[in-house]
């Protein structure tokens, strides 16, 4: 039973929040290519949601376009989640491999990504007084993704309910630590770069007779 194509598995996993991932794990399904595509859509959705939102709801700073914040808010965030979850759950006897965690997590963010696009689309037809519809859609996407993500972690590592909760909390902590280290490393490299540059200018002054 349950012999679905990879595309059908996506639909199955998203529409069956409590059973879908178990089935998928049982059949060893899920494609890394599709999950990368979803993350790409997540990135595009983040940009669209900020830039193409109707003006009556959202005022974006359109004097300049900087892609880095969008990149951090989508792809870096997702990568931090996957790596954080993997590093925490390897220590907590989780069964999931990095690849499986990536696939399952990517499938679970589909409702949120969809809500990013749908809310941006819908905003062009509604006035500010009707904004509650958009809000509903937005929260539906978040809650759905939350449930899916929770079950994805639960399934991929074969955890109990309570252990999943602690794993999620620890993953969030791991993400924060990673972020902190990243900032630290970046400032260190910046300092090192500045140091080399100042040596260079110093030498330049010396050798200019």
């Amino acid at each position, binding site marked *: *039973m*349950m*012999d*679905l194509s990879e595309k059908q598995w996506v639909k199955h996993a998203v529409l069956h929040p409590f059973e879908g991932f178990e089935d998928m794990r049982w059949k060893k399904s899920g494609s890394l290519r599709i999950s990368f595509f979803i993350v790409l859509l997540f990135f595009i959705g983040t940009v669209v949601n900020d830039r193409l939102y*109707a*003006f*009556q*709801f959202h*005022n974006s*700073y359109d*004097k300049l376009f900087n892609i880095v914040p969008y990149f951090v808010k989508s792809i870096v965030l997702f990568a931090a989640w996957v790596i954080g979850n993997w590093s925490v759950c390897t220590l907590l006897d989780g069964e999931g491999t990095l690849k499986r965690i990536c696939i399952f997590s990517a499938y679970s963010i589909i409702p949120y990504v969809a809500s990013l696009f749908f809310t941006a689309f819908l905003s062009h*037809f509604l*006035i*500010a007084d009707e904004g509650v519809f958009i809000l509903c859609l937005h929260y539906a996407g978040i809650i759905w993704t939350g449930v899916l993500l929770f079950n994805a972690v639960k399934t991929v590592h074969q955890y109990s309910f309570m252990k999943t909760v602690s794993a999620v909390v620890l993953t969030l902590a791991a993400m924060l630590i990673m972020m902190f280290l990243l900032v630290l490393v970046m400032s260190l490299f910046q300092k090192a770069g500045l140091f080399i540059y100042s040596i260079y200018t110093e030498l330049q002054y010396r050798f200019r007779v």
Partner: protein
Amino acid sequence: MHWFKNSIPLIAALLVFTSAPHVSARRTDDTYNYDRWGEAIPSRAGYTAAESISGRDLGVSDFADISDIFLASDGSFFICDSGNGRIVVTDSEFEKKAKIIDEINYKDQKLSLENPGGIYVSDEGILYIADTGNSRVIRCDLEGNADLVIEKPDSVQYTAVTFVPQRVLADKAGFIYVVDGNITGGAVLFDSEGNFSGYYGANRVQQTGEVLRNYFWKFLAGDEMRKYMTNAVPSAISSFDNDEKGFIYTCSSSLSQDIDMIKKVNAAGYNLFADMETDFGDRPTADYSEYPQNSYVDIDVSPTGLINCLDYTNGRIFQYDEECNLLFIFGGKGYQLGTFRQVSAVESSEDCLYVADSQKNTVTVFEETEFGRTVHHATELYNAGYYDEALEPWFDVLEQDGNYRMAHKGIASAYINQGRYREAMKYAKLADSQWRYDRAFEGWREEFVSTHLTELILAAAALILITVFAGRYLRKKSSCSGKTVKETAANESNAEGDEAK
């Protein structure tokens, strides 16, 4: 030669275009405005400095430390020459021979002035002088005959040790308001007999982290300890002015608190600008690397209701309309005409603005430019609700300064009124006014739906039909392939079952 003949008009056109900017009256003043993102952009000048008046120009000795100026409703101009202890009276054109008031007759004695800080002249021609050095407020006529002298109030409510009147004001009922240098609880209020009757228009205390922390410690501390702890005090009022309707506008020169810097206070002492989301003065840069340090020493309301705030830090004048929309920023620090070293007071007439400098000891006269006149005309119409009438002046404004944000707002409002929603949306977006855009969009959507109802219904029907047929087709296709899948799945499960057995 043929190519030359053809290019003559071209060359002529080039000459005309390149020389055009030199012909037009260009202002070189360093004026700016804020765009929709709150970033400073160059803007056309609304006022230009015409002349600066020193004591010698008026035929009297040089001024020393001008502390206040006042333009009375009959056109006479008062200069509070603090360092010389005198009041110089002239007219707003500075042509009349100046009259000097330096001795006040009061009950058969002669009073002299010492560092007077502020003057006010009521419509009836009664002069109020804040005689700072002598700690008294004098009410007299224009000949210098006083009928009232107010000294330090003898009341338990008045807790300060000294009385330092710095600015003075009187309302139509004869109540006298005094800015006291060591009172932070607002202006000191006296009735027309000179009796102390309380305080008026206190600023609020800004809720900073330090204030909250002090609250917490005070909650824990004992009575004895509380005595030695610092109290959070509001910033003091530095100056005020009243308009024709009786509202009093106050300003504050505090650098540590930015709440209630500019207020419009009604008779009950309630600040009408309290809930308004307006930033007075300069704005922080986008990354908050530079934080403005505005410190207002004087405020003035023009006869037409424009609010002029005088910033001591940068020597600039910020002009707002009665709805607190920023109109112009001009002035600055420097030695040339139109810039200042140490500003002390501002006054305005219908089309002129006067700024006193206590270090240059001059009064600089600013005249409205043509651009300024157009903007003022348009704002006046707009604020009175004549949106359609204001449309033409607003377009004039845009022609002279395409970045002028108020013009976009005004045009958007007018177009919404006229039902030209599509254009209104464009201008509302340029003005960065979300609620105007929302209203225009609502109108446009309604119009669109009512005019395209048939097409919309047809499109909806077509969409439903397509989804139904596409769904049926897809289901058929998937059920065909699904059958084989199910069969194989059944076989597999059988095989598994056999193994389990």
